[in-house]
């Protein structure tokens, strides 16, 4: 058994864990990230890549504020990270559209967003775009589209470039990344934590659980809870095309490489990250109603990935009362929230007051 000591050990090398680790190492901490292997369910390698605000926090205005703050931090976050790693994140943040395929769908959506805007005291920018306005930008728009809501803060990045950039940035600043390892046990001892990873024991003053679905089993070891469940999303990608989609939507975006990515299914199917013809054809059919020309485009690949969802869909950010220094972080929107996780969140972990927007995101809210 070898013993290695660091200030903070982050369990989980996805976008959430790496954002936190990157933030801590920027503040001069000694940080090590323990990442699993290719058999692990890795949401960061299968996700859609949206930087998304509109519609987030409909039942929880604090979450909408948190998402907006993250979106507003994205430009400087991306600039710093890219300057450090020379990796272009393919970030485009010129607003996002949610297409509605019936007048009823549009009316309901607008009403929900308007209610949220009221709850937020007016600070919640969105617009309603009618087909005539949309057609000016998108001559290929289908006649089935009744309109769209436009969120000016929305955008997208390449999630894989983000992941790679965070890995690279962390290591350039002296952080360590241990891959292909599984965390078996965490033992709180003398105001520190002994973490068993394979045949090694890592010792750290602080441990951050960012292991996605793995948090469920890890959290109780340090007096925390993470009642997360998998929720499967399936994605199709087309051949590369010359740019024609200037805005991402919740279901459809064109990547920096020209690929059209189509998605947004939601299924509770346990730990199965496969694909099904039923869902893929439903997703494709909806995309073809928005842009009928897509019916002529070749699909080159499909995949499934598992979202990490709490019962209400909102994050858990919590420090263990029983074992201070142990934190659990889990959320659905690790890409959107990355700038906050690398900044405000790590300051809280280092002793700053908890940001007011996230004080309610503790696991006890599920104990009813």
């Amino acid at each position, binding site marked *: 058994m070898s013993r290695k000591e660091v200030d903070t050990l982050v369990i989980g090398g996805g976008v959430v864990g790496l954002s936190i680790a990157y933030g801590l190492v920027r503040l001069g901490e000694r940080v090590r990230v323990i990442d699993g292997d290719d058999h692990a369910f890795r949401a960061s390698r299968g996700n859609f890549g949206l930087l998304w605000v509109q519609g987030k926090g409909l039942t929880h205005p604090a979450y909408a504020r948190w998402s907006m703050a993250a979106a507003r931090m994205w430009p400087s976050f991306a600039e710093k990270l890219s300057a450090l790693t020379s990796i272009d994140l393919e970030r485009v943040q010129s607003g996002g559209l949610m297409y509605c395929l019936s007048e009823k769908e549009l009316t309901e959506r607008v009403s929900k967003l308007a209610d949220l805007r009221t709850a937020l005291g007016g600070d919640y920018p969105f617009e309603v775009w009618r087909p005539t306005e949309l057609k000016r930008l998108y*001559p*290929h728009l289908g006649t089935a589209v009744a309109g769209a809501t436009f969120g000016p803060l929305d955008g997208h990045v390449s999630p894989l470039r983000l992941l790679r950039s965070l890995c690279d940035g962390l290591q350039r600043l002296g952080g360590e990344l241990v891959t292909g390892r599984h965390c078996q046990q965490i033992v709180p001892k003398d105001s520190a934590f002994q973490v068993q990873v394979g045949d090694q024991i890592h010792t750290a003053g602080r441990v951050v659980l960012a292991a996605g679905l793995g948090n469920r089993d890890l959290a109780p070891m340090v007096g925390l809870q993470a009642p997360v469940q998998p929720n499967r999303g399936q994605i199709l990608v087309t*051949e590369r095309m010359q740019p*024609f989609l200037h805005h991402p939507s919740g279901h459809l975006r064109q990547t920096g490489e020209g690929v059209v990515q189509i998605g947004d299914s939601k299924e509770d199917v346990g730990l199965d990250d496969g694909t099904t013809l039923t869902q893929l054809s439903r997703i494709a059919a909806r995309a073809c109603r928005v842009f009928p020309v897509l019916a002529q*485009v070749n699909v080159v690949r499909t995949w499934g990935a598992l979202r990490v969802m709490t019962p209400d869909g909102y994050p858990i950010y919590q420090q263990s009362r029983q074992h201070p220094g142990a934190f659990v972080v889990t959320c659905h929107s690790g890409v959107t929230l990355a700038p906050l996780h690398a900044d405000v969140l790590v300051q809280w972990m280092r002793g700053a007051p908890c940001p007011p927007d996230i004080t309610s995101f503790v696991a006890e809210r599920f104990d009813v």
Partner: protein
Amino acid sequence: MFRPMTPPDSPTLPSGESVTPFTITVDGRSIPARPGDSLAATLLMAAVVPLRYTPLSGRPRAPLCLMGVCFECLVTVNGQQNVQACMVQVRAGMQVQRQQSARTVGEPA
């Protein structure tokens, strides 16, 4: 480098079987073809090379694997972009265009 065992406009296949040759159009030019060949083979026999230029570097390309794997033989067939020429059989009257750049979304329906 490649030479057909019988000329592309011959009514007799190497097997001795009789066929009726026809023509297809490539960038407005008529080239001979015969049933049973892949479009990629027809294009190679008519020396239609380079077949395309890559969207990123602009470098010339020609059919390579002839079995659907390498995607080097992409052409526009009867208006459909990015067709793998090695994966379709040549048909009389096919309108083929070489591609100069990445595929476009095309005209609105």
